Structure formats: structure tokens, C-alpha cells
């Protein structure tokens, strides 16, 4: 697994995000598309792809997509 793949998965999980529009430094919780529904769909994809079940607190514990990626790696 790679950071690039993780960003791709994240873009696919959250509706209304154009592929290629996010970077490792994107502060995902500041995205307009980041709402309670996005939490569900992102949780789902990350669990399916990486086997890590995140909760609301884990999403709030980090800021950028890269940090989220490292967080998921750590939990694996």
C-alpha cells in the first residue's frame, strides 16, 4: 500500500471530490464535502481496503490525509 493509493481511495470514498484534487497535505476535515455521511463512506472504504476500523475520534485526532494514512498504517 502507498500514500498515492490511499489518497485515491479517499477521493473515491468521499462524494463530490474530483479525482486528483487532493494531496498528502490536504486538511480533509476542512473540505466542504467532509460531513457525517463522508465519515461513514470513508470508514467503510478504509475498513474494506486496509482492515482498520476508524471511529469519529480517530478522524478528529489527525489533520492531513498523510497523517490519516500514517494513523491507519500504525493500526494495521
Amino acid at each position, binding site marked *: 500500500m502507498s500514500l498515492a493509493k490511499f489518497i485515491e481511495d479517499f477521493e473515491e470514498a468521499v*462524494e*463530490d471530490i474530483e479525482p486528483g484534487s487532493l494531496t498528502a497535505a490536504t486538511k480533509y476535515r476542512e473540505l466542504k464535502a467532509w460531513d*457525517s*455521511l463522508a*465519515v*461513514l*463512506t470513508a*470508514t*467503510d472504504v478504509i*475498513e*474494506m481496503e486496509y482492515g482498520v*476500523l476508524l*471511529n*469519529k475520534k480517530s478522524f478528529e485526532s489527525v489533520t492531513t490525509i498523510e497523517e490519516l494514512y500514517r494513523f491507519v498504517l500504525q493500526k494495521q
Partner: protein
Amino acid sequence: MVCIMAKSSFKQIQIGGVVTCVPPLEKCIDDEVELFGGNEKQIARLKKTIGLDRRRVVESGTTAADLCEAAARRLLNATSLEPEAIDAVIFVTQTPDYSQPCNAAVLHGRLDLPKSCAALDVNLGCSGYVYGLWLAHMMVSAGGCERVLLLAGDTISRIVNPKDRSVAPLFGDGGSATLIQRSKCESVAWFSLETDGKGFDALIVPAGGQRSPSSAETQVEVTDAGGNVRSAENLCMNGAEIFNFSITEEPKAVRDLVEYAGLDLDAVDYFVFHQSNRYILSNIAKRLKIDLAKVPIQTVERYGNQSSASIPSAMCGELQDVLCGAETQRVLLSGFGVGLSWASVILDMAKLPICEIIESAPSE
């Protein structure tokens, strides 16, 4: 390690008919633009992703007991049973008529059931139908009961705040009646029942019971960070926690039960899950790698999440023809929710004399 949970199996007991009653009043998320602050795009996303659509709700004078009474009368009529034939009545609900006495006793009177009939309530929601079936099987198995009437129904629409987008568009109302009886058939029913009480507050009505009695304070409406309005006497759901619970525990519980029964997933003809929403159901199916054609999923889009009535509602609304047909169907029923609590059963059904949805009369 062997997975240990409350599992049991029963022989020579079968379901002898089921009826589900829904109220005639239909609401649709499309008509609730105001609730979403004019955000039609959000409604479109909820429809597309979660599958929210229509729901049936009671008018203010109607209770779960009323819906279940109508279902029970239709069931007794269609099975040509006199009230004297019923040895026990179980009422599963989160929304009883009174804090006491229990709904089962109230309906025992209204249905003219005999004094020799046992009556009790079960305070469970989305897992409650399967818990009720389990109790009924135990009652028949232990002797003394030939026929048990299982009533399962809720009017959750009456305890959600209409200004709470996180629950109001999800829940519908319904009441069911199921007959469980001794039979000569050799088929087996396998049950599993589980609980995680650490999650008791993920889906909760915080006030109105003895821990926090109803008061002027508990009725004050508060707006949360997401702009949703509710009082402490309204239903409050942590959607993300409930979602995580559903997608982790449910597939595991289904696999464990199938293994306990010595079967494999292919041996099950239909998987009737608690109708929470399309997103959760399709997710569970995806994780179990089961064919969606075997998973009733339209009930929640038609009637809403009907809590304890959702599984019988899906049986009546989507499997009527197959369950009334001559061929035996092996069905897995599984409920999950408030408690947190979840329960599953694999049983055979065939030639049901009745398996239908009815509408309650509109209130006057």
C-alpha cells in the same frame, strides 16, 4: 479459540404465520426540504448513498399496541385460531403504551386471551424480533405452551424530534404478529444472541425513565453542533458508532451462526436483516459476499426503519410468495441495534397460511 456466545437449537417448532401492520400515512424525504434547510443536494446524497426514501408513520393517537392488535386479529382470523388456543403472548417494544403495565397484558385483555395465558414484554428494539422468537421457541420446547403469539412493534416516529435530521427521516412505524407453534416437522432452528452493553448510549432516549425522570429541563430542545434539534426525551443516535457496530458485528455473527448450524452461506435461501437502511444492508451483504438477490432490502425504502417490526415487515412485504409456497425455504433472520444487542436465527419456513402486510385504519 472456540467462539462462545449464547447459542441454542430447537426441533419440531415452526412459524405458523406472520402479519405486519403499517399505518396509512406516508412521508417522503423529498417533501422535507425545509428540514434540510433548503439543501436539496444533501437530500439527493442521502437518497443515493443511504437509500432514504419513504416511511410510514402513525398519527399522534396510534401506538405500537394498536398496530400489533390489528396484525394479531388478522393472524388469528387467517389461521382460524380461537383466543383460547394461545398459551403465551410476548410483546417486543421500545415504545409501550404505559411504563406499566406491560403491553402484553394490555393486549391479552383486548384480544380476549384466556387467563391460562402467560404474558410479558421484552424491552428490545431492532434485535428484539429474534429475541422474541428465541423466547417463544424456549417456551414451546419447555412444554406447557403449544402456541405462542409474538407481537413486535414500535412507533419510533413518536420519540424522534422532527427537527433532528440524524434520525427523523430514518424511522417508520409498524407492528407485527407471529405465531410460533409445535409441529411434527423435523427441521431445526439455530439461534445466537449477543450483547455489548458498553455501547448502551450509542442509541438512547436519555431521559424520561427513572435515571433521569421527565421534567421541564429534560423537555428543553437543544441544538447540537450539526444543527440538529432534540430534547433529552427524544431518541439520540450516534450514527457513526452504530454503523461501525453493524458492519463489524453482523457479518461475524452470521458466519458464526452458520458454522454452529453446520451449514455454509450457500445453504441459506434468504437473509432477512433488520431493515436499518440500504447502505448498512448492502455493506453487510458485501462483507459476507452474499448475493443481494437473497437479501430483502426494499422494506426500509418503503416503510422506513421499523425497529422491532422490520424483520417481519420484510418477510411479509418481500417474501410473501416464497414463504407461502410449497417449497421449504431456509431463512436466516438477524436483528441488530439498541442495547447494543444483536441476534440471529436460521430456520425453515414453508406453506405459511398467511404472510402479509396490512394497513391500519386511519385514526378518526
